[in-house]
């Protein structure tokens, strides 16, 4: 009867995604200031990743996409290696 395991908090999700896309999809390290540019860069790389893994291409961080990001894998980028 332990309380259900809380899903990763939003910032956890976000940092998992930023790390993954930075290392494997060439997401440029951006400071927090240019938020607009940052989120569009994020959305573009998310689409690339969703395309690669034949997920629904939404540019949004949905559960299926996050699941793939958590899978153990090779550290060589999938694009722009």
């Amino acid at each position, binding site marked *: 009867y332990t309380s259900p395991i809380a899903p990763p908090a939003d910032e956890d999700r976000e940092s998992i995604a930023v*790390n993954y896309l930075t*290392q*494997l999809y060439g997401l440029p390290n951006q400071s927090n200031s240019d938020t607009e540019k940052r989120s569009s860069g994020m959305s573009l790389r998310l689409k690339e990743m969703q395309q*690669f*893994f*034949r*997920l*629904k291409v939404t540019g949004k961080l949905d559960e*299926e996409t996050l699941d*793939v990001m958590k*899978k*153990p*894998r*090779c*550290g*060589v980028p*999938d694009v722009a*290696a």
Partner: protein
Amino acid sequence: YSTFQGDYKWKKHDLTYRIENYTPDMSVAEVDDSIKRALQLWADVTPLRFTRLYRGTADIMISFGVGDHQDGYPFDGPNGLLAHAFPPFEGIGGDAHFDDDEKFFYRSPQGYNLFLVAAHEFGHSLGLEHSRDPGALMYPTYIHRDVDTFVLPKDDVDGIQSLYGPNPDETGPRPTPPVTPNKCDPKLVLDAVTMLRGEIMFFKDSFFWRSSPHRGTVEQHLITGFWPEIPGHIDAAFESPLEDKVFIIKGEKVWALYGYEMAQGYPKSLSMFRLPRKVQKVDAVLYDETSYKILFFVNKQIYSYNEEQRRLEKGYPKPVEVVFPGMKGKVTAAFQYQGFNYLFSGSKMFEFGAYNKLRRVLNNNYFLPC
């Protein structure tokens, strides 16, 4: 498959490798053997030959490290990134690094099999990038496979031979490189189809497609990537809403899934459904939710098992054509969806409505859009 942009391939076929250090997870001999077999996988299908060096600089320098290991691409602790390698070029080119925060194994299915991870990384060392084929060794995510029976998939063979050509010393027949089934193949014949808590699962060879009608997505996966215990080329599968289990049948063995988990206490025998002893293989199974009856297709006959009463129905077996008029061919897969019964025969799917009246004959990828 894909290869690195630009001319990233070795200009020579005789390459050297050196194991610079070892992981404490395995014995030296196990690491040596895993590395040697992983390189041999690529040598078997190309003119490439690998010689081990014990000192100095080799083309492929192999090492274990953790975190920031001074190549500008730090590892990330347990799980996540397992290893990486550099495409063929001078200096660090060809080198393979393994994250020693991972638990590498020689044989056991848990943890990460060093032979499989190394074989993938050496694909990079030779000039391959990641493949989008979910059955390929060069697919980015780690998938455990039976290393005793592992054969380099065709996608990987095609990729490496696009760089170096075939093995000129080919001696005698080799095991056929497995091809990942293509849902656009008009001749696709499915092994089994079942519902699983609202998703539709299509099985073919060592793979399954997972179709989520409400999400509108179709994913393809290796069966072993989800359930290492379940073999490829299964005969039949069906979901029992009563038990909230999916049963998977191959030969006389029956496995059960509880959601995406393996149910305990399986495999059991086909006799759990009281089928006559002479039935040693079924072709398809259809679960009828309206009557809790399980229809077993055996050649051109049907046996009906009443799940509530846990016994075979009287008056069976019956010819398939008596139960499903118009179903002439051998049924290879079957499932019920939104009240309709779908029987697969060859590359066609027969849709039966109320009173098992044949409504339509469709292509079998009707639910698997190309």
